[in-house]
Structure formats: C-alpha cells, structure tokens
C-alpha cells in the first residue's frame, strides 16, 4: 500500500490531497473533493457514466487512478456550465430533446459530446457518427433517441434527422 500527495486541477481549481494509491479518479472526485456529479455505474469501464475530460480528452474515471491525475487538468460535469449561469448548448439541447430521464448517465453523456464537439469544431456530424460516439455511454431510460437528436441539433445539420445509422 502507498499513499501519495497529488495536485489536480479540477474545473480550474487546484486541489491538493493525499490519496491511497488504489483510489480511482472517480472516487477521488466524488468522495475526496466532493464533486458528486461524476457518477459510477460499473467500475469496469463499459457504462461510461464516469466519463470526464483529462487534459481535454475523455477518460473513464473508474479506469484511472487518482494518483495518475497528479499534475493533470480534469474537467467534470460541474465545470461545464457556471453554477448560476446558463446551460452549455449541449446541456440545453439534451433538455430540449428529452435526452435524459433519471440523469444518472447524463454527466458522462455530456462529457462525451463535449469532446466530440471540440474535436469536430465546424464540421457537421452524421447521425451514424453520433451514434458511434455515444455507443460508449449506456443509458437504460431514453432509448438514446433523445440524446442523439440533441447531439444532432448541436453538431449535425438539421437535414440529418430521421436518417438511420
């Protein structure tokens, strides 16, 4: 067993903590610094609920140790919109298109779509591309259609709606 001093910048704020080597990033965010918006659904990297951005790229927070995030920059759902500010366009679209129900998988979905948006700035994505990108986020409530429509509204041309993958 070993414990480590880590300094992680989360949503623009630097956190210094001492953590057990075996604490993963999801548990660190949730229980060490109290950012419970990142959810844990499977702890084996498949459900996607714990998806966060590490140095701007999506990562499963359950498949990364907190100590590995030492010196890194992490963005979580809490950092997507200002607490008292308007929703991010992706968040607003998810609400408008009923792309969430229980809200448990939602933070992971938002982070996945934010990366997709960053990597495809200016490009128009097809429904098939969006479906593939979202295929790493399990959702049991929505049947995915609302979140796909939300993503199409922000990232795709309107003409893409209705096209199947």
């Amino acid at each position, binding site marked *: 067993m070993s414990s480590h001093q880590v300094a992680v910048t989360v949503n623009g704020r630097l956190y210094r903590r001492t953590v*057990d080597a*075996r604490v993963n990033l999801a548990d660190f965010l*949730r*229980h060490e610094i109290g*950012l*419970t*918006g*990142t*959810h*844990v*659904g*499977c*702890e*084996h990297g*498949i*459900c996607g*609920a714990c998806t966060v951005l590490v140095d701007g790229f999506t990562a499963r927070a359950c498949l990364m140790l907190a100590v590995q995030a030492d010196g890194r920059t992490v963005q*979580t*759902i*809490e950092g*997507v*919109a200002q*607490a008292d500010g308007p*929703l991010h366009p992706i*968040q607003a679209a*998810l*609400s*408008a298109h*009923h792309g*969430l*129900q*229980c*809200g*448990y*998988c*939602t*933070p992971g979905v*938002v982070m996945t779509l934010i990366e997709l948006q960053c990597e495809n700035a200016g490009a128009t994505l097809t*429904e098939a591309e*969006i*479906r*593939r990108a*979202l*295929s790493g*986020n*399990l*959702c*049991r*409530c*929505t*049947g*995915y*259609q*609302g*979140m*796909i429509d939300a993503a199409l509204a922000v990232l795709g041309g309107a003409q893409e709606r*209705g*096209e*199947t*993958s």
Partner: protein
Amino acid sequence: MAGDLSPGFLGRSVPRVEDARLLRGAGRFADDIALPGMLHAAFVRSPVAHALLRSVDLSNARALPGVRAVLTYADLRPQLRCDRIPLALPSAMLRFDVDPFCLAQRELCYAGEPIALVAAESRRVAEDAARLVELDFEALPAVVDARQGLQSGAPKARLDCPDNLVAQTVLEYGDSEGAFAAGSIRVTERFRIHKGGGHSIEPRGVVARFDAVEDMLTVWDGTQMPHRAKAVLVASLGLAEHQVRVIAPDVGGGFGPKAVFHPEELAVPAAAMLLQVPVKWIEDRLESFTATVGERVQEWEMEAAADREGRLLAIRGRLYHDHGACTPYGVALSYNSATNLVGPYVLPAYHLEIQVGLTNLVPAAPTRGAGRPQGTFVMERLLDGIALQLGIERDEIRRRNLIAPAQMPYATPIVTRDGKAMTYDSGDYPECQRRALAAAKWSEFSGRQAAARSEGRWLGIGMANYVEGTGRGPFESAAVRVEPSGEIRVTTGATAQGQGTKTMLAQLVGGVLGVPLEKIHIVDGDTAASPLGLGAYASRQAVTAGNAVVIAARLVAEKARKAAAAMLEVAPEDLDLADGCVRVKGIPGLKRSLADLARALQGTPGYALPGDLEPGLAAASDFQPGAIAYTNGTHVVEAEVDIHTGAVRLDRYVVVHDCGRMINPMMVEGQVLGGVVHGIGATLFEWMRYDESGQPLCGTYADYVLPTADVVPRIEIHHMESPSPLNPLGIKGAAESGTIGAASAIASAIEDALKPLGVRITDLPVTPARLFALIRAAEQRRDSR
C-alpha cells in the same frame, strides 16, 4: 373531464423541471449522501448456489485495521422482531411463503446471497475485510432449471421448504377441449423465453442513520417504493411508524428491481442501529449481477386451435416459471404473463396450467414489462403460426381476431385477483393496427423485400399488438398546499426514478391553479412528507398520483375561490384562476393572489378566517382507480438478417401507442422509447446465464450485453388517445408498454426475412449463434428434401 385545466397544460410537451440540476451534475443520488462518522458497508456473499453453512470465521476480518464491525445473522437477530423479512403478499397461487433472511442464517440458497455485513472506514477496507471472512460450508445440489426442479427425484432448492413447487394454478375459461376437438387447425409450439434484468445504470444503495437524540431512523434508499420499505422496517425492527423515515433521493433508474425490498435494505439500517453510527452501502455492479432480482426463464408448452378463417378457438398449455430462491414480490410475473397472453384479441377458451418452481438463483421479480412481454410473445407467435399454416397474411389474421371498438369496454372471461372480470376499458385496436401498418408502409414492403433478396439481402417485416394493464391501485396520495409565500407545495406517495414525475405533477397542478411550473415544489418519495403512499410499479403514477393531485388541486382552487369571493365580496362563480391569482372575470384589476389567500387562511390572532372557511389553503386526495386502465399498442419493425452470421440489424421501427389522454407527449415518448429499447435488448442482446452449478456467468457488461446507441434503430412513435373512462383525466400508463411488443415484432420480422427457409423463432434471446443454427438447420432440411 379536465375542463378546468388551463389551455396548454394538458397534452403539452413542457420541458422537464428535473433537467437543469441533473444536467449540471447537481442531482443527489444515494452515493452522493455523506454523513459525519459514516461507515461503509460491504457484504460477504455466498460463493455457491446451494450449501449449508457450518461456520463463519470472522476473526481475521474483524482484526483488520479500519474495520468497525463484521456482523452475521446472529449479530443482527437481536435487533429484529422476526426471523425473516416479512414480505409475503397474499396470493391463492402460492403454496407456501418463502420470505428471505436479511443475512443468511444457515442455508445458502443462491450465489450472491448476503451472509455477513462488514462496516469499515471506507468501502475498500470493507471489501478487504470481506475477503478475509472464512466460510465453512457443506455443498448441496443446486436446482438451476425450474422445470427440472419440478420433476420427481430432483433435489430440493431449499431444505426449509416442503418441495420446489412454490406456486401453481390453472387459469381457465371456456371449453378448450371442445374447441380443440372442433377446430380445423392446430399449432403446437414450445417456447423458452428468457428476459433479463432491470440494469438501471445507478445500482442500488442504502444510507441509514439512527439518531439517538431524536430516536429516529432515517434511511435514504434508492427504492421505487419507500412506503413499503418503511412498513417492512417498522415491522422488522420493532419501531413505531413515527420513528422511521424512508427517503428515496434521486434514483438513477428503477425498471422494477428497485420496487423489490432486498435483504440489504434491512441489514444496513439494522447495522446502523446496532453500531449507533450512520452506515452506507452502495451496490457495485458485480453485486447487482448476483444479488439484484431480475427476470429469467419461462418455458411454455402451448397449443392453439383456430377455424379455417384463422379465428382463434382456444389456447391451452403449460407454463413453467423460474421463481428463484425466495418470494420477495409475490407471483406477479407468471400471473402477468398468463393474463397478458390474451392481449387485444377475442380468445373464446383458454386453459393454462402454471407451475412456479424454486431454483437456487437470485429471486426472479419484475423488470420493465413484468412478465407481460412473454405472454404477448406466446400469443403473437401462435398467431403467426396459424397465419403460416392457413396462408393468411399476418396482419389479416390479427384483424380477424382483434376486439372491435364497439365491444368496449370489453370484459374478458378472466377473473382477476380482486374477483372481477379483467376488463379493457377503452381503445380501438383495429385502428391502432391500421395506423401502424400505414405508417410503416406494410403493404409496400414485399416489393422492397423482393428487390433486396435479388441483391442477396434478407429483409423482413414483423408486427405485434399488445395491451398493458396500467395504473394499478389501490391508490396514490397527493396533497397540495399553497404556502403563504406563494410557493405551491405538493406532496405525494409517488416516487420518481427518472420518469419526470415532478414535471407531470407540476404540469397538472399548474394547470388547475393557473400557476407557472417553477412556483410548484413537488416532494415525492419521502415517507415523512406523505404518510400514505405506494410508489412506482405497474406503470401507475400518472394515473394514480396524476388524478390525485388534480382532485386535490381542484379542492384548493375551490377554496381559493371561496376565500377570494369573501374578500372581494363577489360570488365564487364570478372568479377564475390565472397567473397565480383569483380574478374577477372581466375586471382585470380585481384579484387576490394565491399567496394573499394563503396568508389570510393562515389566520391572524383574534380574527376570523375569510368566508368562515377552514384554516389553510390546502387539500389532499388519495385517488383510488376503480380498475386497471389498459394501454395498447402496435409495433412494426423491419429487420435485416445476415444469413452468413445470424446477425440481425433493425432498420426501422414504428410504434402506434395509445395510453389515453397524454399529459406530456414528450415524456410519454421518452417512456415508450426506453421501453422499446429495453425490449430490443431482451430480444437480441441480453442473456443472464448460469452454469450447471448455479454460478452466474455474467458479472460485467462485457458478458451481459446491453443495447447501445449504435445498434438501436430510429423509432417512430405515433399516438392515439382513447381516454380511459376510469379516471377523471382519462389517462393510462406508459412506462412499460414499449417493452411488451418488441420481442414479438422482432421475431416476426426475422421469420419474415427468412421465410424462404421456414425458420421459426421460439426462444429468446435471438443471438447470432442461435439464429445461425436455425438457419443452418433449415438449409439442411431444405437440401434434404
């Protein structure tokens, strides 16, 4: 009817009031609750499906630094009023009750059954300690197949039960024997139907705190039924009702399993009381695979008789149902399967022998659809079989058997649990089918199919009709109170797991009182806020809580009118409610805000209340639906089969759905979409497997395949609205309906694609290897002819 609802409130897709905080990551789920001094629990679970526990050595686990306690049944028993968790529900089908233990006492009856609870400073240390608990047990033979377990000479799944036949009944009406003797044609088929688990993305979770100062147990429980959980805790722990509060916080999906009271929901509060510290247990995914209830396998041996025109004369057969190792939730599954088989059709005679067998597997209990998809599957497959034999189109044979709208309300000959005839309250089933076929361009499909076949592509189209009994009683509670601040506070026994219950209720209350949604605060899923309540099961909350809040809100509106009439010195009939005010019709400035009225009815020391009214601007209602409201629908799906691999791709999916009058069509569609995809999963992907000794073979989402965004088709939903005469709003439930028709429609589409080969689909799930084996067998049959 809903005449007093402000225009635009009923049938309008308003955005959900739940969304903003969930989208910001500000929801509060069970694992988000942290209490000072809280310990973290992990469970030691049975590694085997069946054994007798000889001894448990806790010494190493208890000695581990960071461990506060390791508790067995013997440790918790002094906290409990009864040996077992009192969960038995009355049922004439049950031959004996099998209530679970909160921790295994002596006999281990399924792999995953909790044996001991470890409480430690962190979950990881609790897991370390759980591994150090040494179990000494004597292995016993396990029953893993219900039907085999019912044969003579089979081992007993539980030594503490007389035999494995935990429940049985015969569901029958009409003269089946005569019908089979007279019938022109007969279809015989054996079905082996698997349906998987609920798999909410949030696993279960319980946080319990016993406050010695307040002498009060508070439990945050990710449950669909907090009031039932409270009742069980009261009975089990010997506390008074006022000493127990159960709160369902944000719950990350339910889908059935969270309606069932599980052993951990008692063990964790009992441990918190014993240790006098808060205890948290959050289920991990491995535990949810082994220890959370789900559905599993039913085997049906069935026969249908029809006349030359394809009209059903009778259906008879046997249903063997895998019940699992105990009875936490009655026998709803097999009963729903059996009764839902009848569906939207006229079936003159029916004889079904149901045998429910104990097995050494985690108890089987409802997941979305709750047994109905299986009954529907059997009926729809039999209809396709008759159509095939008679050379009638599949849509035509259904048309010939559907209940006509003029027959509504249609009393089936089935007598339900409450002694009344199972009666479909409203609906136009032939029109529903017609619209679905039209939307899917059913009649044009054969052309596309032929064109694709010439390119070597195997396309098929399938359809299914179904009904779902929704809005089950006995009641749901609601209370509406206008606070002096102007806030509208609504309390209800309804409990949300993502359905949008708050939005649905706020929309209705806002409609009656003429106030915007953001002024309405809904408190659901909290036994302290609503003394009575039932919660989420059987697609019921819009029907029961929805009507309850409307009745309560109307009483509030009435009182507000009377108070305002007294204060403004006008007649109540001259007043209406809008924009948070009671206004004199036609005189814009003459009004009193609801807040003013609430303040007036709050009372001023020494002064009379306006209009001699009772204090408070509030009212309550416990709406009791007289009977079940039947939702119905038709699914049409196009599938493409890769005959070289057995892979199935769904290309197009059309649903016509009738859940009566809709409150929020967007949320209805959300429910239907989720249900359909759950049904697609159960048909093509999800398969909870066990080996011959009862060991689960699925413990991760690599082994158990859930549908993802890349494998589900776009789903097109059309609505019919046949109002239910059974409740003031004319509504029916929508939460499970989407699941019910999916397997039947998809199986029909696969058969249609493979029609030249004569493949018949009788078993679920239809995995590629299974389908390929059917294709191969059919090719061999064809080649040997």
